[in-house]
């Protein structure tokens, strides 16, 4: 059985690549797959923190590639899911100390044993990005509904297409349905119209996600969080289930609607 390598990228920093990687990895593991999440953001590693595993790191990606340890020694098992592993990035090195071929070899080995390899790509379009997209068979672009993020996403899609990663899929992160409805935020159609790629899902802006991230537990474990539910649906789509895309709506309830109409939107999101 051969696994699939998916790179999560965005171009712009801070749009939620690492959070998305952690949640998609966790989501796929929750669905019973054997998953490795791979942090390639060497020098600025975060994925271990988001997954709550930073205390367990002994060896990292660069150690594996430079032959200081075995692959299995660098793989950290998740706290909650036995079939989810993390390969952390090195914090003391930089992106130029590995190359795309080395990472591709690593991923080819992992594919023999695992169903999904999810690569967390660093921001930017330099060496780190080139390393991360090298081994990938599929790409997921994360963007937020802001023109700056869209501009970068557009550029990254161009680069992915040039690297034969055609038809990347898009996740729109941090949508605020209330703002979209008022016309203050770009909506799904605007974004798809501009980027001309298939949309994989939309994740609403969610306070619970921030809390979960700070606690080192991917929000997908939180069944009440709208963003967690959104990630569950995205995971299902990656796994091949036909889950229809739901439009985000401001949460029901008369008072909520009144508040929303008045612009006092305390809880404006629901699940997608």
């Amino acid at each position, binding site marked *: 059985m051969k696994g699939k390598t998916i790179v999560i990228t965005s171009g712009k920093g801070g749009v939620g690549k690492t959070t998305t990687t952690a949640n998609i990895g966790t989501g796929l593991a929750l669905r019973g797959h054997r998953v490795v999440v791979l942090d390639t953001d060497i020098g600025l590693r975060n994925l271990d923190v988001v997954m709550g595993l930073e205390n367990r790191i002994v060896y990292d990606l660069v150690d594996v590639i430079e032959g200081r340890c075995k692959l299995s020694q660098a793989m950290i098992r998740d706290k909650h899911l036995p079939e989810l592993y993390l390969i952390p990035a090195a914090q003391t090195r930089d992106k130029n100390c590995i190359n795309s071929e080395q990472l591709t070899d690593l991923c080819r080995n992992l594919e023999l044993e695992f169903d999904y390899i999810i690569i967390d790509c660093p921001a930017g379009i330099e060496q780190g990005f080139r390393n991360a997209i090298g081994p990938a068979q599929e790409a997921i672009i994360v963007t937020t509904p802001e023109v700056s993020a869209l*501009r970068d996403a*557009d550029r990254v899609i*161009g680069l992915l297409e040039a690297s*034969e990663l055609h038809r990347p899929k898009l996740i729109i992160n941090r949508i605020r349905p209330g703002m979209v409805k008022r016309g203050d935020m770009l909506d799904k159609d605007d974004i798809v119209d*501009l980027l001309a790629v298939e949309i994989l899902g939309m994740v609403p802006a969610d306070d619970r996600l921030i809390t979960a991230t700070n606690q080192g537990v991917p929000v997908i474990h939180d069944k009440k969080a709208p963003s967690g539910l959104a990630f569950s649906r995205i995971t299902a789509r990656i796994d091949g289930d036909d889950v229809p895309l739901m439009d985000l709506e401001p949460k029901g309830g008369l008072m909520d609607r009144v508040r929303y109409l008045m612009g006092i939107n305390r809880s404006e999101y629901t699940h997608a």
Partner: protein
Amino acid sequence: MAKTETIQVLGRGTNVDFTIDDAVPFELAERSLREYLMACRGLYSRGTVSINVGRRILAPDQMSTIRGILNQETGLTVSRYWCSPDVLRKALDGPECRRALPSPNLEFAADVSAESGNSAGFVSPKVEQQEEAVELEDGVGSVRGQGTEKGHGQQLSMLFPELDEARDAALTVQIPIVMTETVSEPSTDVENGKGHVEEAPAVSGEENVSPGTVTSGPGSATTEEETKEQDAWQVVEPPQTSSVPENEIWSLTDAWSTPDDHTLLIKHTCRSGEVVKHHGDVVVYGDVNPGAEIVAGGDIMVLGALRGMAHAGAEGNPKATIFALKLESHRLQIGSHVGEAPRTAGKPKRNGRSVNPQIAFLRRRTIYVAPFTQRREEYGGGTPYEG
């Protein structure tokens, strides 16, 4: 925006357009230019500066006067001249044109294809040439003067249109000359505050990645016959790694696609960072997204939404047009003229997938955008995109 009697200066962002009234005597124009530059000393630091001298023919000493004024008043050093092919050919023919040529000692060299990337009128500040030479190939002439280059060059394109009015329109001679310049003392530019995002790809040098940059094949020799026109069309497929070595994908291909002036057909969406430069007309089957740049010697036609930067008639053709099914660019350029979309009050309207074919054209040195009609004569109105 500043205005004197004989010198009109239109500027926005990094683009400044000097227009010297061609009806006044040269001495007056010279004095006005000097006065203007003295009045706003320290204003210019970088960007594209073009000087439009109208129908005036400048003798070498007059050119050096202007160069001297610029050098003296703003600390600019002239580094490079550039002539378009037919202009130079004409200029070499006609005796009255000869004096308009900037340098008497012409050398002929076979290869200037690499030069073309840095050709006139484009924001490409990393010009590094330091020698003094004139190179000619297929009538493409580039005359380069002595220059000291630092990171930010400044370009100055001078237009010398229509040397002899009595001649046939087809024989119209234009000598667009670009001087790449360096500012000796960096200064704050009030107008630079509104910088353009579009400029970024051109500025960021070798590390810049432009995967889909179209480079079309060598193409057959240009023929005048209609029958061969069809063969001359070049189709560009989406970029593919297999055919291109990896290191080429990641390097900025900033050069003109080909010296031919065939129509270039781009069959994919031009995404941010992609730069297409072509001598002839360019047709895009798809969108041109923000951050992408299309520079064409002829017309540009976008069968989709045009949101990026489009520069038609880049070799000094003021009759070039830009057509798009959805024209949403904030900045357009035709010839040496730059236009910015008028700031619409309030939110941009969402027109979704609806199509509103529009055409941009140059009228009285201003770019106008009007709904597309089939007959050119009907382009009466339109929204001015002022530079």
